[in-house]
């Protein structure tokens, strides 16, 4: 477990800012104590300093997870957000998409979101903007990338994709093994 290098921090923050924008500050400067990111087994964990101190007791090979896993660095050095980061993305998300109840299931099975399943969408969403996907009951279901801008969404036919799927909570079951 080690702190992130400059480059890694930059890569990760760039990715995060696609979803939560400048709210990223709120993740680092929290009123309830200092929080930090740590790299362990190529994965980035977000935890409070208090937990961090305790976690140092545990040897590297025996440590499985600390705090919350945000995602992992791929072998090519890119950062990929995991669904486990949803708890911290959802409250700060700038652009949101709501899914109709009928399309919930489809999205949770890992499919892209079609126009027909689109319930609401934040105004002024640009194309390829990172969005967090909610159910109509405001339960966060996952996140993805807007395939069309809000304006375009109004015009396109019902079967066209409006949000590209990146992660959904179904992965907690589907890919439990690869989360850590």
């Amino acid at each position: 477990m080690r702190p992130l290098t400059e480059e890694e921090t930059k890569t990760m923050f760039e990715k995060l800012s696609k979803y939560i924008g400048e709210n990223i500050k709120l993740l680092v400067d929290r009123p309830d104590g200092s929080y930090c990111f740590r790299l362990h087994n190529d994965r980035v964990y977000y935890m409070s300093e208090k937990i961090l101190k305790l976690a140092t007791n545990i040897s590297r090979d025996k440590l499985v997870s600390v705090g919350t896993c945000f995602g992992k660095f791929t072998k090519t050095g890119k950062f990929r957000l995991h669904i486990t980061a949803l708890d911290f993305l959802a409250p700060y998300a700038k652009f949101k998409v709501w899914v109709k109840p009928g399309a919930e299931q489809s999205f949770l099975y890992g499919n892209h979101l079609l126009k027909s399943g689109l319930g609401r969408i934040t105004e002024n969403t640009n194309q390829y903007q990172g969005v967090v996907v909610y159910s109509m009951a405001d339960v966060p279901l996952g996140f993805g990338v807007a395939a069309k801008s809000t304006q375009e969404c109004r015009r396109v036919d019902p079967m066209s994709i409006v949000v590209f799927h990146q992660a959904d909570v179904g992965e907690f079951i589907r890919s439990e093994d690869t989360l850590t």
Partner: protein
Amino acid sequence: MGRKLDPTNKVKRGPGRKARKQKGAETELAKFIPDEDTEPKRLSSRARKRAAKRTQSSKKPQDVTETQPKKGFTDENSKWLKPAKRKRKLGEPESEDDSDDEHWEEDEDEEEEEQLQPKKGRKEQKNKDAKLEVKKDEDDDDDDDDDDEDMVDDYGTLDDGSGDEDAEEESDGEDLLPIERAAKKDKKQKDVLPTESDDDDDEEEEEEDDDDDEEGEKSDADMDEEGTVQANIDEEETFKLPGAEEGIIPLDLKTIHQRIKDNIDVLCNFSSKREEGKARADYMSLLKQDLCTYYSYNDFLIEKLIDLFPLSELVDFLEANEIPRPVTIRTNTLKTRRRDLAQALINRGVNLDPLGKWSKVGLVIYDSSVPIGATPEYLAGHYMLQGASSFLPVMALSPQEGELVLDMSSAPGGKTTYIAQLMRNTGVIVANDANADRLKSVVGNIHRLGVTNTVVSNYDGRQFPKVMGGFDRVLLDAPCSGTGVIAKDPAVKTSKDEADINRSAHLQKELILSAIDSVNADSPSGGYLVYCTCSITVEENEWVVDYALKKRNVKLVPTGLDFGKEGFTRFRERRFHPSLKLTRRFYPHSHNMDGFFVAKLKKFSNVIPAAPTQKVPVCMNAPEAAVATDPPEKKPSESLKTKKTVPQQAGGLKQMSKANGTAVKKATNIQQKGKKDPSIGPKKAKIAKLDGAAAKGGNAKKPAAEKTDEIQASKAGKNKGSPFEKKKPKQRKTHMKAKKRMGKNKFRKLTNMLKKCEKK
């Protein structure tokens, strides 16, 4: 999303809920079907009239066969079924039993038929009977329960036949059904036993003869009741048979079930219901055998369970293990409230209820149109699938906000997340598990439920105090044999034996010590340890806790759970610390949750008490250890030996006396020497005095006496000097040899010698 009901692998165990349900539905259907069949026939009076006109209706026998299963008699009591015929004569329309109605109806029909066709007469009747019998045979195959049907068939034919006595006799003589033949055979078998059953037979036959007699009917009624009563007794007698003859093994399950019931009935009222000359052990061994067969347990586990439960509860427990526990979920209060969750699930077509007064977060799922382990609410972490029993240890632990808590064997994370939810995501939880694969589900569940204060580690729990200590609270959900969750994992029924139990008990003892060592007794808010298992054996529960109480500075405190049964403070030959009644046991049959054990310990000092080394020989249950330490001490003290062995023999400690025997032999040899030696004289008197005190004290004081021996020995050693010292090793060698070889005869010889010595 999807197929998995439960991400925690629980689903894989055992047959699915659906399979169980279907089976239940089948049996229920079976109950209903005969009713439906019979009802229209019984109720329609027109049909009866039409039937009267009909010449040869083939439907009636069906009625007979189908109504009779309700009687629920078994093969053995087929004799007592005969008296029931008289009901047909009574012809009471308001009789409650369906079958009675049937008989009456049928008889009427037959009479009518006879009136209509007086000329065809008996021949016709006879033919009909034969036909009916054939028909019934066919019916048998369709029905689900062979045993009942067999018996019923027998019954039916007799009924039909006795409508006309001549016809009955003829049918008796000529064409016997296979069942009838079997019944006869059975009769013959019973004739071997000189029992009342023969008398019954005779009586019944007589009663058959005076069928028309009204008084006979009354006595019949009595007989019928008697028959049921005697059926039990007869069962007793008949199930004595297999033990003696060893031949009637392939019994069907129904019979065995009945036998179990009867057997338990007898065992519960043993003095009044027992059969003369049969010991309780006979009944018990048969019961054990039957339970093993009926519930398919192995001998070992059944024995354990018999020890654990009173007989009346035992069957309840075994039955409860055949039924799955209700599916329960726990609301994740970090993300939602129970009311909101219940509403959301109800909207999805889930039928649920609050779990009980004792839990504010539990919900019971009765049925669901969607997979409960894959709803969007589940995936969003609003609830956790978790057995009701898993709530209990966490409630007992009652973690406080901001504490440092260790969950020693956390997979699959149900209890860990519950702890986190009670702590409102503050403080730190260390979730440990020895199995790396199972930790994946822990990580998954922690993240899904939005728990952020955990460190997940993959240590063996036994190493733990070395990794980190100073925890405010520790939860040890120890790995166990799983005898409490047989409903979930029926493999436990046959896969466990003594070694498995002992192995897990040993592991649990190691774990509980390391768990206690991880607790910080000086913690301002905590210093608690909760030990729980999903096993119900005493070896894995009370014994382990008792062991911990002896080894560490801990005490039991109330668990804070207001239900559940108290733990055992005594079990068979074992006696535990009286405070063990503060622990709680939960059983599937009494609490409708998995079998569980919860104990809450408070550590009151961080000092680990030093292991008392000198105490070892004091232990009564370690005679070998005592034996091993004794010989070298005893050899030097000559005269002591002879006297000391006497109280020991009286005490009946065979092993001790055996070991001493060898020493005695030498001692006698030496004693003669000692007599010659005048210098030992006064000392001997002193020793004798000491020894007398030791003898009075009996076995318990023996170690003390041995200490005096030691002192004396050292003195003797000083007196005698080096030659004696040299002798020592040699003596030990011979002693070992002798010990190995010693048989009963030798032992006797030695005791004789001893007596002689005493006389001298």
